């Protein structure tokens, strides 16, 4: 009898223990954030993983539709002023209450983070935040600003009490990393692990997982192996090469969805002696063929997009002809992916006076986008066959982005022809138009990532007008027109494809694909 009792006790203890283990979730992640400071770097992995800790006034759901976050409601109270009503009863992780002071403090701090590789100024410049009472904030702009609410869904709110005077390192080490989100920051060991603990007092209800462990595993096959071995419960960035095999594996559940990210090429349209544009033998030239729209069009026509999608991406991508795919606001029906047409390309190159071809170097990252280095190599093949002798140089993302943005003289972009991607953080076409194609102007926050320095006043005017148009239908038409000028007429950039992302979990879990590519522990559901 006593034995049975002991067995029962032991059994109960075991069950309790396994229950505790089941509440911990381990995720193998492809991209590690570059900081725990939510305003240091406007970068996909940062905006995603830091959402566990911090929240925004307005949040985006898995399809990037807006929903209330730290603000419960918002409305325009005049042409140029928006009123945000804040959520009451929200507590910071240290127990202090969340108020309008924190929002005003965040707006001041987020534009002034030293050494930021990519600033949130692009969403905050020109906006004035005023506290009305503890739970009301007014945001005013010089001109009507219809994208106000959308842009508020990009700024993570931090605690004034804990973050006043804090540097980026104070966030990375923990003291300033105080948010209102469902998880508290525990530790970050760079390259090894990021750990979050449950915020039991979360206003949205107690989160499911008691502990979240993010393991950065940059090598794709290793990440898959870790999931198959049971070392992690879930991975993001499932490599395209393995998707076919994993589909038939009962130990794995996949989820897949198109993202807001377009993979594209920038071409140097500013410098006459662009350093990586040469003659066919690699000698420097004092003329830059990329400045000629016919050459840019020819390059676009030399790229066989369906071949890249089928052979490099293994079918897991969608050929692109513009900045955002069909489901997004601002997509224009008039632009289709450029058809592969070497004969027409040859003719265009001949007309432009480059019938004999020239030399080019394509630069790209090798650990940022899905199959990035291979895409660069495939493009080099295609251009070389079309007479433009192309070399490939790929490098890790931390080196690449620094050089691509400001590695040249006077902090100008260093390269001539680069492979990059852009995810529309706002979920519509104005974000890429403004950042990638408008004339570079630091003071206005225009062309912040315009690394080819494309410039067309006609398109700039359309974008500026669109950003000040409140009427949705009219704004949509303006965005479509701007895209038709920037890409259709000018070929300011060359779109390649929209990225499609894949997640994999162990059986018993479900993760719904997000268009913003984020991997969020609070959205992992347990299924029977």
């Amino acid at each position, binding site marked *: 009898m006593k034995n049975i009792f002991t067995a029962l006790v032991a059994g109960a203890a075991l069950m309790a223990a396994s229950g505790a283990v089941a509440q911990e979730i381990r995720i193998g992640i492809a991209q590690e954030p570059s900081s725990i400071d939510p305003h240091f770097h406007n970068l996909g992995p940062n905006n995603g993983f830091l959402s566990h800790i911090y929240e925004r006034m307005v949040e985006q759901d898995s399809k990037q539709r807006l929903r209330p976050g730290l603000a419960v409601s918002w409305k325009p109270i005049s042409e140029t002023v928006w009123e945000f009503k804040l959520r009451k009863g929200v507590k910071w992780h240290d127990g202090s209450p969340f108020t309008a002071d924190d929002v005003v403090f965040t707006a001041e701090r987020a534009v002034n983070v030293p050494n930021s590789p990519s600033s949130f100024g692009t969403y905050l410049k020109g906006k004035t935040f005023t506290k009305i009472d503890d739970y009301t904030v007014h945001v005013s702009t010089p001109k009507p600003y219809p994208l106000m609410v959308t842009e508020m869904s990009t700024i993570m709110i931090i605690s004034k009490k804990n973050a006043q005077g804090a540097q980026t390192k104070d966030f990375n080490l923990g003291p300033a990393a105080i948010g209102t989100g469902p998880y508290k920051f525990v530790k970050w060991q760079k390259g090894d692990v990021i750990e979050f603990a449950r915020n039991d007092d979360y206003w949205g209800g107690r989160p499911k997982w008691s502990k979240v462990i993010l393991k950065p595993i940059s090598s794709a096959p290793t990440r898959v192996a870790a999931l198959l071995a049971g070392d992690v419960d879930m991975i993001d960035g499932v490599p395209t*090469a393995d998707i076919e095999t994993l589909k038939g594996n009962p130990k794995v559940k996949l989820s897949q969805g198109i993202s807001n990210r377009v993979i594209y090429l920038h071409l140097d349209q500013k410098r006459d002696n662009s350093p990586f544009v040469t003659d066919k033998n690699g000698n420097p030239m004092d003329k830059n063929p990329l400045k000629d729209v016919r050459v840019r069009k020819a390059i676009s026509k030399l790229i066989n997009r369906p*071949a890249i999608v089928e052979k490099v991406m293994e079918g897991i991508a969608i050929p692109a002809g513009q900045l955002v795919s069909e489901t997004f606001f601002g997509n224009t029906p008039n632009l289709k992916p450029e058809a592969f047409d070497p004969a027409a390309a040859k003719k265009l190159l001949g007309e432009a006076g480059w019938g004999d071809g020239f030399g080019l170097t394509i630069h790209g990252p090798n650990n940022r986008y899905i199959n990035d280095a291979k895409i660069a190599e495939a493009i080099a093949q295609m251009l070389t066959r079309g007479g433009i002798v192309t070399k*490939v140089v790929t490098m890790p993302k931390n080196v690449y982005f620094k050089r691509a943005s400001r590695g040249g003289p006077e902090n100008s972009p260093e390269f001539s022809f680069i492979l990059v991607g852009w995810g529309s953080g706002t979920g519509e076409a104005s974000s890429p138009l403004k950042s990638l194609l408008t004339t570079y102007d630091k003071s206005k926050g225009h062309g912040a990532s315009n690394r080819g320095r494309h410039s067309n006043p006609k398109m700039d005017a359309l974008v500026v007008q669109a950003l000040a148009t409140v009427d949705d239908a009219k704004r949509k038409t303006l965005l479509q027109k701007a895209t038709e000028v920037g890409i259709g007429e000018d070929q300011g950039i060359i779109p390649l494809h929209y990225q499609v992302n894949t997640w994999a979990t162990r059986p018993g879990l479900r993760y719904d694909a997000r268009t913003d590519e984020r991997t969020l522990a609070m959205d992992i559901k347990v299924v029977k």
Partner: protein
Amino acid sequence: MSVAMNEGSAPGAAAVRDETPLRRFISDFCESKIAIAGVLGVLLIAIIAIFAPWLSPTNPYDLATVDIMDSRLSPGKQMMSGVTAFLGTDGMGRDMLSAMFYGLRISLGVGVASGFVALCIGVCVGLAAAYFGGRVDMLIMRVVDLQLSFPAILIALILLATLGKGVDKIVIALIVVQWAYFARTVRATAMVERHKEYIEAATCLALSHRRIVFRHLLPNCLPPLIVVGTVQVASAIALEATLSFLGIGLPVTEPSLGLLISNGFEYMLSGKYWISIYPGLALLFTIVSINLVGDRLRDVLNPRLQR
């Protein structure tokens, strides 16, 4: 007591019967069948490496002929150009057989070139240390100790990170990593030889330092150097493959064996074995062949193991 003045041959092999030292060496070497297989393997690899452009069905480094539409064909399938890919194609549509031939060319070229230069540097430095002794010896050997106490891969990684990409940069990195082994080996042998009578005799004849070191001391230090040299070429090839596997060193459009293996690694779980297995086997075959020859050389040239 006779003074050995024979130049260019090992003292142990001094003529006893009516045969030249070389003949004796060859017949000793050929006693091992497996060593002969090693020599044949090395010869085969050398021929492939030297004549790769003529032996390969396609040029895997010419982007104008490599077609992405051919990617990941299984062995024996025909490519768009009509050429049959006997070992399949890789993710970028390169014929694996051609890519391996060209890859071997890079691997072997880098291994031999860096091994030879490192040997020259190591020999000069090591002989200087042994011959002059004292402070010179101290200084040189502490530098060697310092160098040998760091893992080779670490030094190579740091160098390549600062120097950048390219075959020449890899060769430089491998030389820096290897010279110390030669210096240490040659110094140890030279220390023993230095106190022998023939060196004393040479010194008494008031020959110049240079003549003593290079005409008298060096030839008698050669046997262990040949052994270390062979083994080092093999390890240089392995190190180059490691660096390429890690994605540093060579441009992606001109893969060596290590980069081919690394590219194929992505497809391991999806059953496309040929992309990394064949270059892996080629690398294995190369290193084993060279090491077999090296081992046999060691056995034959070591007087203590002579029956």
